[in-house]
């Protein structure tokens, strides 16, 4: 469970988040949307405890990550899988070592066993293990890197929370489709809570039933697709305007089909 209570955050003097509150339940999937620079990635960084809020509390499994010591914070982080916006793969390690990173660092497993699991995970995220496992991240395409990043986040001692920062931005429709399926599959099979940050509206509707719109560091909307469609908040209208026109079909159809998983 993740809960933000009246969180304020600023980089130096520039305020980034203002009074952000929301709660993500166990095994719930939530999408955070919003224009570029509105503070979405910052929210994920705060949940991981990479930055500390100026005010307010961030509770992960009922523990305030902003006030935990280094040891307990490390334990909390082990429960969270994070896919960074730019992948953040370790570029001096091979793909196999990246994917097996958690096991290499936190377990005493032999490399044979780690490699076996890394291969399985690469298969799970839709990559040819034999082909990529010994390559360096630089030698992969953007979409492949994204999938390696997801695999790396998953191959730990069963994350209970997954945070995805724009997992599909800049990918071709086919790769996007794969990654969305992957996120849904994970969500279904392992019942973990996930937060997916994206500004691809179509993707948002495909992975969750609940949506949060962040606008200039504030929560402008929090609710279901139905409510989003009815929402007349200026800021939300502002953000959705381009999509309402150009993606009417998707918007309506997804709403009717209910493509998101239960």
């Amino acid at each position, binding site marked *: 469970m993740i809960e933000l209570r009246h969180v304020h955050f600023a980089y130096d003097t520039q305020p980034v988040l203002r009074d952000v509150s929301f709660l993500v339940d166990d095994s719930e999937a939530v999408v955070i949307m919003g224009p570029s620079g509105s503070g979405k990635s910052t929210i994920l960084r705060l949940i991981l405890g990479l930055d500390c809020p100026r005010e307010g509390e961030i509770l992960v499994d009922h523990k305030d990550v902003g006030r935990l010591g280094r040891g307990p914070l490390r334990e909390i*982080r082990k429960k969270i899988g994070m896919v960074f916006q730019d992948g953040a793969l370790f570029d001096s390690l091979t793909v196999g070592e990246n994917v097996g990173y958690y096991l290499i660092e936190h377990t005493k497993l032999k490399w044979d066993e780690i490699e076996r699991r890394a291969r399985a995970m690469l298969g799970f995220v839709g990559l040819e293990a034999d082909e990529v496992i010994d390559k360096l991240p630089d030698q992969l395409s953007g979409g492949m890197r994204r999938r390696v990043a997801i695999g790396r986040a998953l191959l730990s001692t069963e994350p209970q929370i997954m945070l995805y920062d724009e997992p599909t931005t800049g990918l071709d429709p086919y790769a996007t489709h794969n990654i969305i399926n992957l996120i849904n599959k994970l969500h279904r099979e392992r019942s973990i809570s996930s937060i997916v940050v994206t500004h691809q509206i179509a993707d948002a509707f495909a992975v969750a039933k609940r949506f949060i719109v962040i606008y200039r560091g504030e929560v402008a909307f929090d609710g279901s697709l139905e409510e989003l469609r009815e929402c007349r908040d200026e800021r939300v209208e502002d953000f959705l305007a381009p999509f309402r026109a150009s993606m009417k079909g998707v918007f309506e159809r997804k709403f009717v089909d209910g493509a998101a998983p239960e």
Partner: protein
Amino acid sequence: MTVLQLVNNWFKNFAYETQNLFFFSLRLVGAFFSRRWYVTETMEQMYLIGVGSLYLVVLTGIFAGQGFAFAFSVELADFGAKNYLGRIMSIAIIRELGPVLTGLMFAARVAAGITAEIGAMKSAHQIDAMVAFGIDPIKKIAVPRTIALVIMLPMLTIICDAIALLGAWVIAVFVAHVTSTMYWSAVRDRLIFGNLFIGLMKPVVFSFVIAFIACYKGFASKGGTKGVGQATTQSVVMASITILIVNFFITRVVFSWIKGYL
């Protein structure tokens, strides 16, 4: 902006940096006493730092030794004191030249490498990713490099000393026409506890100076590639100057402590 303000700003900046560097160094030293040791990383760094710097140190030793020997032999010849060349070279090289030149070479080669590497990792969010995996980047990155430096710098200083004495021998025998036996016995004359102590204590202190500054600058870098470039430049400049200043104080202070042994 007036000159006064500029000076004021500069001073404030300097105080701020020094304070941060100090706290960082404390944390780094604290991280030495942890349960988790990254042995593989440490060995790898010892190889990269030590063996990788060997050619540089050998070249430095040969040419510095010869240059100084040449300059001194001409002066000493005027007094008919050429036979003392070995003594002077022994003191100059073991106490000052060897440690300082090797230290400066390390400040250039190793400090730049460390800062650039950590800075690049930081700007690609790899440090964040590491933290998200529950790993302390100071333990994982800074401690192995510090240990490698503390072991390798004194060893390479000894090599530099030896090579420089050899370089000076070439000049002594073939240019100044001092007999080989005369030269080496003069050198041995000054190989006494006090000199060796100063000559070995310096590289140990310098290695900490380089490690603290290089790691600190890397972790504190921000602002993408340009920021990493600046941090690297600053790291080399700061490490070099600090080495020269610290060198002076060690010579000055330790000299008075152990005068009896000189």
